[in-house]
């Protein structure tokens, strides 16, 4: 009799305590924290602002030939890498980190974590599932693509298996530290991801901050053009244009405004996906001057010279033509590039008239109504030169000039040496100079022990 109540008490109190222990200590310390488990969680990761802002192309923009800065303005730059990249120095980082490198890999980490959804038990036919996986693959492909244009040599089919590619991180485990892959592996990975993204992404995303099918098509186009597969490239440009071919007629835009384009990406029909970059001080408006060669290449009736540029209060001609208002460094993907890519690919594969047709179509939207040129029956080399010149004019300050220059330097007829004169000194970057490949940041080399680029 006496024994029972006591035992019951002990058992009862113990069980109460133990069961409490579990749920009591399971409370989330912060209501906003979550171990990602739902598709919405993974999707929220991809909606993070870092995925579309801080696009990492500052080195390419700084290194390309679209602008110059005045004498005396270089030494006042506090940021060493910008000062050094402007003159393509051997060592540019001086021990500092590279935001370009860092931000790309951070986005890749986010994408890799979102791709963890593939290992979970989700209904793979759900539209949200496709969007999550498609977007994550797009981001991974796009960021590896950007990295490859800056930190690897230009793609060369002959040496792609021996040229150094990127360290390819394909899962979110931070303890995995891959070595540099070959160029071939890097490009194949980008291609694989971009292709799957193209298959999975919807034709229309929630808004233009997120990639859609046409954006993936343009990424594939760019990739194949870098690999000199112009037929493949044309295929994807064509597919992209079937999804989105709308252009904005500059006659309908108030080109006299400093920043004439709409506030929101969704209000600009040319935009496929919005990406904007950080604005390094070296190309900030206080120092910027548009390259005279580019600015003088616009015909008098070409509205772009007015829409894309304005006169700064310090007298310089500066860029204001980002496809979203105030975004001086707008580096997203847009339909004008699709038109130009298809034109170039068609010309390069011998379909010259069709190519010129694409070009003529684009220019109709860029010139004062009724004045746009109508190019026809040109020899292939002239047509190619024309389309490349238009590319330079249309895609100015969009971050593609550097990768264009690199791929064009592969062909003898389109080789370009870059020159800069500043403070009485002349700097030259020859077309075959190894400095077309930026060095991998010092801290990456120190901590992961990967191989440095030859410069």
């Amino acid at each position, binding site marked *: 009799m006496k024994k029972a109540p006591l035992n019951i008490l002990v058992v009862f109190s113990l069980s109460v*305590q133990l069961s409490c222990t579990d749920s*009591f200590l399971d*409370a989330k310390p912060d209501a906003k924290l979550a171990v*990602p488990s739902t598709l919405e969680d993974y999707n929220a990761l991809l*909606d*993070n602002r870092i995925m579309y802002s801080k696009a990492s192309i500052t080195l390419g923009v700084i290194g390309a030939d679209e602008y110059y800065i005045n004498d005396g303005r270089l030494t006042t730059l506090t940021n060493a890498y910008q000062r050094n990249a402007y003159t393509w120095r051997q060592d540019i980082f001086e021990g500092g980190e590279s935001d370009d490198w860092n931000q790309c890999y951070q986005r890749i980490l986010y994408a890799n*974590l979102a791709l963890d959804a593939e290992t979970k038990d989700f209904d793979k036919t759900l539209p949200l599932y496709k969007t999550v996986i498609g977007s994550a693959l797009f981001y991974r492909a796009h960021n590896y693509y950007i990295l490859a244009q800056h930190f690897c040599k230009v793609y060369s089919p002959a040496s792609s298996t021996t040229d150094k590619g990127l360290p390819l991180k394909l899962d979110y485990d931070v303890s995995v530290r891959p070595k540099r892959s070959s160029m071939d592996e890097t490009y194949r990975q980008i291609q694989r991801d971009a292709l799957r993204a193209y298959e999975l992404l919807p034709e229309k995303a929630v808004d233009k901050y997120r990639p859609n099918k046409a954006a993936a098509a343009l990424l594939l186009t760019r990739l194949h053009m870098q690999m000199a597969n112009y037929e493949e490239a044309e295929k994807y440009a064509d597919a992209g244009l079937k999804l989105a071919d709308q252009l904005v007629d500059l006659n309908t835009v108030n080109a006299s405004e400093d920043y004439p384009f709409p506030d929101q990406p969704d209000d600009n029909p040319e935009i496929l996906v919005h990406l904007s970059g950080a604005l390094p001080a070296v190309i900030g*408006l206080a120092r910027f001057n548009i390259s005279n060669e580019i600015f003088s290449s616009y015909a008098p009736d070409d509205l772009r010279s007015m829409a894309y540029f304005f006169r700064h*209060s310090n007298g310089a001609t500066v860029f204001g033509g980002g496809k979203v*208002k105030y975004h001086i460094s707008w580096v997203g993907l847009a339909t004008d590039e699709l038109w130009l890519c298809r034109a170039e690919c068609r010309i390069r594969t011998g379909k010259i008239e069709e190519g010129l047709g694409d070009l003529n179509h684009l220019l109709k939207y860029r010139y004062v109504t009724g004045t746009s040129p109508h190019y026809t029956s040109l020899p292939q080399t002239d047509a190619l030169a024309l389309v490349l010149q238009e590319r330079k004019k249309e895609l100015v300050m969009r971050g593609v000039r550097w990768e264009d220059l690199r791929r064009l330097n592969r062909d003898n007829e389109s080789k370009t040496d870059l020159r800069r004169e500043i403070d009485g000194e002349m700097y030259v970057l020859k077309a075959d100079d190894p400095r077309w490949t930026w060095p991998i940041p010092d801290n990456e080399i120190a901590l992961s022990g990967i191989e440095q680029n030859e410069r």
Partner: protein
Amino acid sequence: MKMFKVFLLFLLFIVKTGDVVAQDRIKIFDSKTRAELSSASIRVIGRGAGSNQLVSFVQDVKAGDTLEISHVGYVTQKLTYLKLEQQRFAVLLEKAEGLLEEIVVNTGYARVPRERFTGSFESVGNQDFNRRVGGTILDRIDGLVTGVQFVRPNSTSASGLRIRGLATIQSNETPLVVVDNFVYEGNLDMINPQDVENISVLKDAAAASIWGARAGNGVIVITTKKGRQDGRTDLNFSSHFSITNKPDLFYSKRFLPSPTIMQIEREKYEKGYYLISDQQQPFPEYVELLIAKDRGEISEMDFQNRTDMLANADVRKEALKYLYRTGKLRQYGLNIRGGSQMVDYSFGIGYDTQDDILIGNDMHRFSITLKNGFRLSSALRVDLNVNYTTREDAGNGVSLENLSTGLANFGLSPYIRLRDGNGNALPVIRDYRRAYVDQANEQGLLDWSYVPLENRWLEDRRTNSVSFRGGTSVNWTPLRGASVNVSYQLLRNGSSTENFYEKESYYVRNLVNRFTPLSGSSPIPYGDILQRFSNNAYTQHAVRVQANYTGQFRERHEFAGLVGLEASDGKTDAQPGFLLYNYDKEHRLGENDFDYTFYHPVRPTGSGRIPSPPSASSLYIDRFLSYYGNMSYTMEKKYGLSASVRWDGSNLFGVKANQKGTPLWSIGTSWEINREAFYPFRNELPYLRIRTTFGHSGNVNKSVSAYPIIYLLPDGYREGIVTADLQSAGNPSLKWEKVSTINAGLDWKSRGNVLDGSLEFYRKDGSDLIGEDFLPPSSGIITGGTATRSNLVNYASIRSSGMDLRIGARPFQGRFRWTPSMLISYVENKVTKLSINESLLLSDYLNSPASPRVGKSRDVLYAMPWYGLSHDKGIPIMYIDGEQTTDYGMYYKSLGYEDLLDVGVTVPKWYGSFRNDFHWNGISMSFMLSFKAGHVFRRGSMPMAGEFSSVFHEDYFKRWQKPGDESTTYVPAYQETAQPYSATVYLDSEVLIERGDMLRFKDISIAYTFSKSPKMSKLLKEITCRAYISDVGLLWTSNRAGIDPDYIDASYYAPRRYALGIQIGL
């Protein structure tokens, strides 16, 4: 069941035995509190050989015997036992002045007599605590406790303290604070120091491990005043007034006189360093003057006059005149305590009001405390307590630093004037160029100037804090020595900050002007603005159930033990604040109906959205669950043994369930040698005790996670989109940090307490420390990235070892008492294990704290070698592979970790205090000197092109000027374009390292107590007047640079404070 019976028998056995000690006949009490002192010892002296023994039974005493009655912490009394018939009498013992007055340690779980305690602790009793007039709670224990080091001088929060060095590298280093037996998560400023009865500091494993996983950094136990049970009533009224000197703004070395700065600005201007930008980035006033002169906008004479005016101005003088004042602090307190065995109470009200040394900053604090104890029956006691504190802080002051624009091209202009000769407040350049600001009126805009002296009263920033602490405790004593205690506490802290901007304030005018379009009116109404920031409320429930047992059997064995369980649930709930435009304070009307998504063009350039009301809301939950047990056993009062175990669990997120908790334990022994028969120094050293303890405590790092963790937040720009930050990519193998401590101590007391003290040695090993691994950026974990917690691993061990010595003396104990005391502590730490890649970046070692290395202290300071200045150019000489060079970029890159010099540690290895108390007829005087030694610091200087990044220093005048100067100076020459790394090779070099040894006159205090005397009214019991000066001054320092090592780069050192106080007891 059988076990239970045995236990009951055991209890009965204990109750029956072990009485009939001397105290049955001779009762000994504290002379003031009338609390019975049960462990006093009574000796018969002068009865020939073999006497001087402890008297156990009163039968042993004969008439005419002289008895010596002593008790730890009390002045020994001698009296003659006159008659045999005198069967019972009472002896009142007076408390000894000095450090040893507290004889009972409050661990927060139990009150343990010192002699049963094997661990290391220190207590600061009420008298010592009140020795400092005014000041904060922590300030009052500075210099009174060994092993407690104020790493941040005059810190008001526990985070500025180290108790016995470091046991962690990157986790929380803050000691745990316990108030009235529960962990206190609030702000210590919310506790009125007048309510504090005493403070214990628990230092080693045996003392602290009872607090478990959070005790690795030591524990500070604060106990507030309780009622008294002796039927008497105390009424105490106190009033303190202190004034703080204006700060010495001329102390800072980072200041150059106006003419020098103007000359520098002129040179920069002529070289084209001031670029006119669309953002209208401001230029210094003198540069504007130069521009105006060059453009012919002002005459040469006008220019000259205004230049002279600037050259003669000194912003520090202006600041002392118009921005700073003599600080005042008034503190009033009323405390009533009383009661009987049945009911007791303590009631206190406190009011503090402070005018900070910065005009516009003030504080008011009001607190009310009530404690009640009820003895419902002989076995049941219930305690209730509530404390309510409100505090208001106004932060409208404009400091010297606030006058700086913070721009690299600008800095703080030394020639800023705040008032002109006619007493008119003057505008100061702030966000835009003066020329741009001046044309605002022409443009139809509001006046755009910033006039600090006027604006100070047009913007009102206030923080209101409220703290409520209430609790109850039920104590049931079913059997003598055995009790069960259930206690509960509710803590609620809340604070909210509100900024009110009058329409005339710069904030409103600037906002309206910025949004005013080229044509049309500003979308922001020109009216007052009221802004409330998020309202943080912290609510904590804590419950404890504990069973205690103390007993004694067969005279020889004493046992005390407790087991318990404790749970706490803390919740921080932050509600979003609001933002009201066009606010009508009188009628409480405001507008917030705006389109916050639209981009308006803003002046001077670009676009912006109307500042939107805050929407951030958050909820944080901290839960702890602990089971613990503690026991001590003493045999023949000679041999002591103590042990404790504890299991702690917390709601760490993303950690596997079995890693949420950690088991911890400790064990300790003590030996009172003086009780041994063979002890030879009974006369000279009647008390000698050795203690040793070993055990584990821990440290909680709530930022660790085994799984990837994301943090959800609304995008804010894209409507309806929720975004996620990756906070941690997860590390599945993380463990809790563990701290194990070995402590060995020796306590002694000479005859009559003339000389007492203790010496302790300890070693504290922190292991499995959690810290950041250096990950390559290709992992996605990047500098400034979101996933900052991903690189956390158990990566290191650290060992702190040291010594604490405390010596007190009472050479005179009569009417004139002199009690000098000295505290000396030594501590050093060393990283003993590191399981990650050591950093390869030199800057990781040159920054402070430096990246850890095995064998080096956590506080190590590295410097680059220094080889002097070159003869021809006066720039630093460096060597690469033995070749002299001045290419600092190449040099810097040629350096490895091995090339750096370990120049010492930044935290003092030796520290302590020397205190002298004098007491004569109610007058007491006390002063304290404190010292710190064995550390170094890096002082600032003027780098070669500091002008261009607004880094200024007095060393500017010691710069190398001409060949030959290199023999008399080490400050490099001016260079217009600084080479990369030219600043670091000088500023981080060994030549700027100074030793930190110093001796400080900490404080002096004089008090006079009128005790109850026939002359005084019957009502009055006691009046104490005190005068006190703190931070008297630095007496000596070893560095040559005139720098107070406690305030290396500060704008000023702690200004001296004078206080007067009166305490009236009824």
